C-alpha cells in the first residue's frame, strides 16, 4: 500500500490552514474593488481612452490624481476602468476552466481506471507548459485568427480577450482537476458511495450529488486563489504585449507602457496599475479557507 | 521529594485533570483520574470510546496533544513528581522508566527507517554498554516474540510488516528501552481475533519475564481480563471502580461496571443487554456523578452531592454513592 497520495492530501489540507486575521479587511477591499468594477464608468474623472497630447507624462496632481502616461491618458481613470476588464476576464476564465476541471476531476476520482489515467495524462501535458508559454503558444495559434469575429460580444469585444480567457481556462482546468480528484479519490470506496449505489444512483448522479458537494470546500477555496492568480496572468500576458492592446484599459498593458519611462524616474505610470493588481490579489486571498497561495501548477497536488 | 512513597507504588496518579483547548472551546477529557501501579503488576483500564483511556496514558508520559495540558492533580514516579520534571529529566524518564506501545502499530513506526535502526536507537537512548549489544538484543527479543526469522524482519521497513508483525515490533521497541512500566494502548484492537490472544499472551509473558509492570487499556473487558491482575473501569474522564480481577468480574460494585459486564456477556435465549442513553459530552466538567442519567440505581443523593470515594484498601477503590456490597 503506497500511502503517497494520502500523505500529500493531508499535506494539502495543512497548507490550507493559514492565518485568519485580516480577513475582514481583505474582504472589504475586495467588495470595494468589485464596486469600482461595476460603477467604474461613473466615477472616472476623464475618458480612459482619449489621449491629451498636450499633457503627457504629467505627474500626479489635483487634475490627474495618478498622473498621465506617454499619450496623455489619465491613469486614474484607466486604473478604474481596468478593474472591470481584469475582473471580468479572470472570473469567466476561471469559471470555465475550473468548472470543467472540477467536474472532470470528480469523474476521474469516481471512475478511476483508464478514464483517470487518460485525464491525468492530459493534465500532465497541459501542466508541463509554463503558464506564460502556454499563453504565448495560444496567442501564436489563435491570436491572428478571425474565427472569433462573429461571436465577439459584451466583454469579449476583441480576439485578444477571447484568447486570454481560453488561456486562463486552460491554466485552471488542470489545477482544479488535480485538486478535486485528489480530495475525492479516498471517497471512491467510501461506504456512503456504496450506499448510494445500493439506492440505484448511477455514475453521474453520484458525481453530482455526492462527489461535488464533498469537494465544495476545496473548490471554493481554490476559486478565490485562482481568480487572484488569473489576474496576475492576464496582466503578465498583456505586459509582454499579448492579450489586450492599448488603448484598452488593462493593468498589465499599462505597466508595459509605464515600464519604458520608469528608468527616467516617471514612476506613476506603472506604480498605480501594479498596486491595483497587488491590491486585488491581496483582497481575493481573504476568501480562501486560509491559504494565500495561488495554486501553482508547479506545486505537488496529487 | 525523592523519597519513595510509603505504599511502594511505582506510579501514582492523583486527581489528574486534562484540558484541551480546541477551536470550538475547551474539552475536559480527564476529570480527576486516580490510579496506582505497583512494581511488576499488570493493571488494565477499561472504558468506552471517549472515556479518557488514551489521554491517561499520554498524561503519564506528558505527551499532550496540541492545545492540551495537565491542569490539575499530581503524577508521581517512585515518589518523584513527573509534572515538575525539566526536559532532561523527562527525557530520561521517558523510555528508561516508562515506555509505550501504540494502538496503531504501523503509524507509530518511522516509515523511512528499517526496523533494526529503530530498535537499536531505542536501546541506545536508554541503556549503556553493560546491557550488551543492541543488535544482539534486537535479534533475541524478536525471537522471544515468535518471529521465525528475526534477521529478515530487522531488515524491513515498517510498511513491509503485517499488522500483527508491526505490533510485535512495537512491543520489541518498548522492551528495548528496558522500562519498569510498559503502557499499552489497545495493542490488539486492529488484529484478527485468533492473533489477538497470541499477541496479548506474548506481551504478558515478556513483560513478566523482565519484571516490568504493565498498564494495559482496552475497550474490551475480555481482553483486559485476560492479562490484568487489577482492573480499573473508566467513565467520563474518571476511574469509577478499581479492584482485583476477581472482584471486578465476580462482584462488581459500580452500576456502570455491572451494566458493562452484562453488555459483554451475550447469553443465548436472552435479549442482548445495552446501556441506554448517551456517553456524556466532555465539554462539561462533572461535579456530580456523570453516569447518573443512565444509572438504574440512581438515588436522590446522586443529584445533590459529589461522588464519595470508598477505598477499603489500597488495591480497591469505588466512586459511587452506593458503596460496596450493594450488588
Amino acid at each position, binding site marked *: 500500500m503506497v500511502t503517497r497520495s494520502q500523505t500529500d492530501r493531508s499535506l494539502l489540507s495543512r497548507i490550507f490552514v493559514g492565518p485568519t486575521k485580516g480577513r475582514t479587511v481583505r474582504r472589504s477591499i475586495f467588495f470595494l474593488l468589485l464596486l469600482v468594477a461595476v460603477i467604474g464608468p461613473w466615477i472616472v474623472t476623464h475618458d480612459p481612452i482619449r489621449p491629451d497630447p498636450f499633457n503627457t507624462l504629467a505627474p500626479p496632481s489635483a487634475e490627474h490624481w495618478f498622473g498621465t502616461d506617454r499619450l496623455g491618458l489619465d491613469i486614474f481613470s484607466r486604473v478604474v476602468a481596468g478593474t472591470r476588464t481584469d475582473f471580468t476576464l479572470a472570473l469567466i476564465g476561471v469559471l470555465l476552466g475550473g468548472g470543467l476541471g472540477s467536474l472532470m476531476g470528480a469523474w476521474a476520482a469516481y471512475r478511476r481506471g483508464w478514464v483517470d489515467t487518460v485525464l491525468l495524462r492530459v493534465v500532465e501535458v497541459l501542466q508541463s507548459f509554463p503558464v506564460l508559454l502556454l499563453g504565448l503558444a495560444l496567442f501564436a495559434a489563435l491570436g491572428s485568427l478571425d474565427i472569433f469575429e462573429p461571436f465577439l460580444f459584451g466583454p469579449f469585444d476583441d480576439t485578444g480577450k477571447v484568447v486570454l480567457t481560453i488561456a486562463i481556462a486552460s491554466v485552471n482546468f488542470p489545477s482544479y482537476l488535480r485538486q478535486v480528484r485528489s480530495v475525492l479519490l479516498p471517497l471512491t470506496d467510501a*461506504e456512503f458511495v456504496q450506499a448510494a449505489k445500493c439506492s440505484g444512483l448511477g455514475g453521474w448522479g453520484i458525481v453530482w450529488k455526492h462527489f461535488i458537494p464533498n469537494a465544495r470546500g476545496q473548490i471554493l477555496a481554490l476559486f478565490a486563489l485562482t481568480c487572484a492568480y488569473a489576474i496576475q496572468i492576464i496582466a503578465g500576458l498583456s505586459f509582454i504585449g499579448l492579450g489586450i492592446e492599448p488603448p484598452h484599459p488593462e493593468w498589465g498593458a499599462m505597466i508595459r507602457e509605464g515600464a519604458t519611462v520608469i528608468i527616467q524616474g516617471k514612476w506613476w505610470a506603472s506604480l498605480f496599475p501594479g498596486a491595483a493588481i497587488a491590491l486585488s490579489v491581496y483582497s481575493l486571498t481573504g476568501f480562501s479557507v486560509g491559504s494565500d497561495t495561488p495554486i501553482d501548477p508547479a506545486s505537488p497536488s496529487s | 521529594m525523592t523519597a519513595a512513597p510509603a505504599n511502594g507504588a511505582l506510579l501514582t496518579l492523583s486527581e489528574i485533570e486534562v484540558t484541551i483547548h480546541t477551536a470550538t472551546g475547551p474539552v475536559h477529557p480527564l476529570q480527576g483520574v486516580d490510579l496506582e501501579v505497583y512494581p511488576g503488576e499488570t493493571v488494565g483500564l477499561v472504558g468506552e470510546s471517549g472515556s479518557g483511556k488514551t489521554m491517561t496514558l499520554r498524561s503519564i508520559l506528558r505527551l499532550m496533544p496540541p492545545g492540551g495540558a495537565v491542569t490539575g492533580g499530581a503524577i508521581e514516579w517512585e515518589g518523584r513528581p513527573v509534572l515538575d520534571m525539566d526536559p532532561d529529566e523527562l527525557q530520561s524518564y521517558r523510555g528508561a522508566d516508562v515506555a509505550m506501545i501504540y494502538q496503531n502499530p504501523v503509524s507509530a513506526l518511522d516509515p523511512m527507517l528499517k526496523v533494526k535502526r529503530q530498535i537499536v536507537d531505542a536501546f541506545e537512548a536508554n541503556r549503556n554498554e553493560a546491557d550488551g549489544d543492541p543488535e544482539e538484543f534486537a535479534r533475541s527479543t524478536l525471537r522471544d516474540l515468535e518471529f521465525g526469522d528475526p534477521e529478515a524482519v530487522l531488515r524491513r521497513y515498517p510498511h513491509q510488516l503485517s499488522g500483527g508483525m508491526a505490533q510485535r515490533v512495537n512491543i520489541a521497541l518498548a522492551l528495548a528501552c528496558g522500562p519498569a512500566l510498559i503502557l499499552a494502548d489497545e495493542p490488539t484492537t486492529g488484529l484478527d481475533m485468533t492473533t489477538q490472544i497470541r499477541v496479548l499472551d506474548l506481551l504478558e509473558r515478556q513483560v513478566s519475564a523482565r519484571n516490568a509492570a504493565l498498564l494495559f487499556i482496552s475497550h474490551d473487558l475480555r481482553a483486559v481480563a485476560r492479562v490484568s491482575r487489577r482492573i480499573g473501569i473508566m467513565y467520563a474522564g474518571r476511574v469509577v471502580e478499581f479492584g482485583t480481577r476477581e472482584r471486578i468480574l465476580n462482584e462488581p460494585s459500580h452500576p456502570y461496571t455491572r451494566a458493562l459486564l452484562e453488555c459483554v456477556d451475550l447469553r443465548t435465549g436472552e435479549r442482548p443487554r*445495552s446501556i441506554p442513553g448517551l456517553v456524556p459530552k466532555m465539554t462539561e466538567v462533572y461535579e456530580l456523578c456523570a453516569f447518573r442519567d443512565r444509572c438504574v440505581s440512581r438515588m436522590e443523593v446522586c443529584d445533590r452531592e459529589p461522588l464519595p470515594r470508598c477505598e477499603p484498601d489500597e488495591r480497591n477503590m469505588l466512586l459511587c454513592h452506593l458503596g460496596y456490597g450493594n450488588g
Partner: protein
Amino acid sequence: MADSPILEVRNLAKTYRVRHSIGRVETVRAVQEVSFVIERGRTLGIVGESGSGKSTVARCLLGLTPPTAGQVLLNGVQLGGLKARQMRPHRRLVQMVFQMPQASFDPTRTVRSSVAQPLRRLRPDMRRPQQDERLRYVLAAVSLGEELWDRKPAALSGGQLQRAAIARALAPDPELVVLDEPTASLDLSVRGEILTLLQQLQEEFRVAFVFISHDLEAVRVCAQEIVVMYLGQVVERGTVEQVFESPAHPYTQALIAASKFTADSFSLGPRGETDPAAGCRLMPRCPLAESACSAEQDLVPSGVGGRMVRCWKAVRGPVRGP
C-alpha cells in the same frame, strides 16, 4: 415447499487482478466456491477474520461487484449479467447496512435526505407523500429521535447513525438486508441495543438478514444458520446450534475459543506471510495438520442436518485440540 428461498448463491467465485509493478500481475482469489441459501425472514451469519472474503461476498450479493463465476439467484432470478436498467426492480429487494456508520453517510447531507435516497430512487411506484410517510415510518421504527432527522451525520453518535443506516436499508421495503459488521465499530454498551433492534425489525418487516461479522457472540444471538469462512473458502456450514455447540472444523474451534479470550486449549499458529493457494488453507497454522492435509479439501456433509465441513479429519470424527 411453497416458499422458495429469497436468495440462493451457487459456487460464487471472485478473483481480483492486482498489479504490483510493471508487468507483474497477480491474481488474488478473494472468494472461491461459496454456496448457501437464505430462507425468507431468516438470518444467515457469515463469520471469518480479515481476508476471509466475507465482505466480497456481500458486495457480490448487492451487485456492487460482478462475480467472476457462479450465480446469485434472487427470488429465482439470476442477477449476474443484468443491465443497469433490468437491475433496478431487483435492487430494491436487497439493501445493505455498512460497518462504519460515520462513513456510510454523506457528511454534506442531512440524515433525512440520505435515508430518503433509496426510497426516492427505488420506489417510483410511490407518490411523494407516500414516500414521505414511509420515511417517517421507518425512522420511527428504528426509534431515532425526530430532532435528529435534519442534522448532519457528524452531530449523531455511532449508535444513532447505525439506526439511521438500518432505516435507510429498510426504507424501500427490501426482502433481504446484508449487514456488514453492523456492530464492529460501536461501543459494547450500544451493541446489544442494535442487536435487539435488528431482531424486532426482522419480525416487523418480515425481512431476511445476512449478518456478516467477526463477532461470534453477536452472530450467535441473531442468526439461525452460520457459514464460517477462511481465506475465501467456506470451511464449515450449519445451524447455530451445530456450529457453536460442536464446532467440527479446527478453524471454527479456534475462532470460538478466541472470541471468549480463553484460547489456552486450542490456538492456531501465526499466520504466515503468504497464504497457501492450494490444499487445506489452514494447514500451516493448524495444530492437527498432517501430510494428508496438503491435498485439496472438499466441503462435504458431516454428521446430520445438512452440516458441511471442509476438513477430512473432522469428517471422520470429532477433532479436538492436542
